[in-house]
């Protein structure tokens, strides 16, 4: 559960999750926890804003500073893939989030190289060397290569 909180904090930081998504997720987790009900889920469900949800989770982590380094980059990429399916007009900002994964999370060398290549396609698009359709094709192949099945506890429905 604690690991899920870190993913939510990361998504809030990157502005790719909404208050409603987190509330729905907390409600779903509350219903699925039949024996013990973590108080933090009730707090999240009843929070009135995204900032409040962020503070609740930050305090729950009980640390001075957040550390995202052990999150699985493939789960985040898969989440971004779902986000992209709904908001493909945000292709540049999605590539930007993928690019900055390496700043916060440990990524393998092959993935890192593919991130640089994808970012370079984005630069060539911004320089009018390739079209938006071509860029989207590269984004599609990237997601095809790195998307995995997201565990149920990390499913934040849009």
């Amino acid at each position: 559960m604690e690991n899920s909180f870190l993913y939510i904090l990361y998504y809030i930081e990157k502005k790719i999750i909404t208050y409603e998504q987190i509330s729905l997720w907390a409600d779903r987790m509350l219903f699925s926890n039949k024996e013990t009900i973590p108080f933090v889920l009730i707090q999240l469900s009843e929070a009135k804003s995204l900032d409040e949800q962020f503070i609740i989770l930050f305090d729950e982590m009980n640390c001075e500073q957040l550390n995202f380094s052990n999150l699985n980059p493939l789960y985040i990429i898969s989440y971004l893939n779902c986000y992209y399916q709904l908001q493909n007009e945000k292709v540049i900002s999605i590539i930007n989030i993928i690019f900055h994964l390496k700043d916060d999370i440990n990524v393998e060398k092959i993935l890192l190289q593919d991130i640089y290549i994808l970012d370079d396609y984005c630069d060539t698009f911004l320089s009018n060397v390739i079209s938006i359709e071509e860029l989207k094709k590269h984004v599609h192949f990237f997601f095809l290569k790195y998307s995995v099945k997201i565990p149920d506890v990390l499913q934040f429905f849009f």
Partner: protein
Amino acid sequence: MWDGKWTGKISKNNGFKTEPENLQEQLTLSEAQSNGGTKIMGKMSDPLWKNWEKFEYNHKFLNYEVKMVNGMPRVLPLEHTISIHYFSNPKTGETSGYKFK
């Protein structure tokens, strides 16, 4: 034979951020220009930068963000990274095309 050369295309392109907007970015750009970064790609295919190599410089720092809860501010330390990309000509050592990512 065309071997790639800086033409100012980056600084005139609205899609690229080339100017620092705060002190942290100003420091990062100076560090990148004086210390140099890590090579991330060699022999670019983009005709503008043909045969140049792409480098990256990263600067991590703690940023204090304010979150509001019930009208009360709460300041949290959150780590941020500023990344700069630029090109270097392996033959001459010339660097150019600095941009914030």
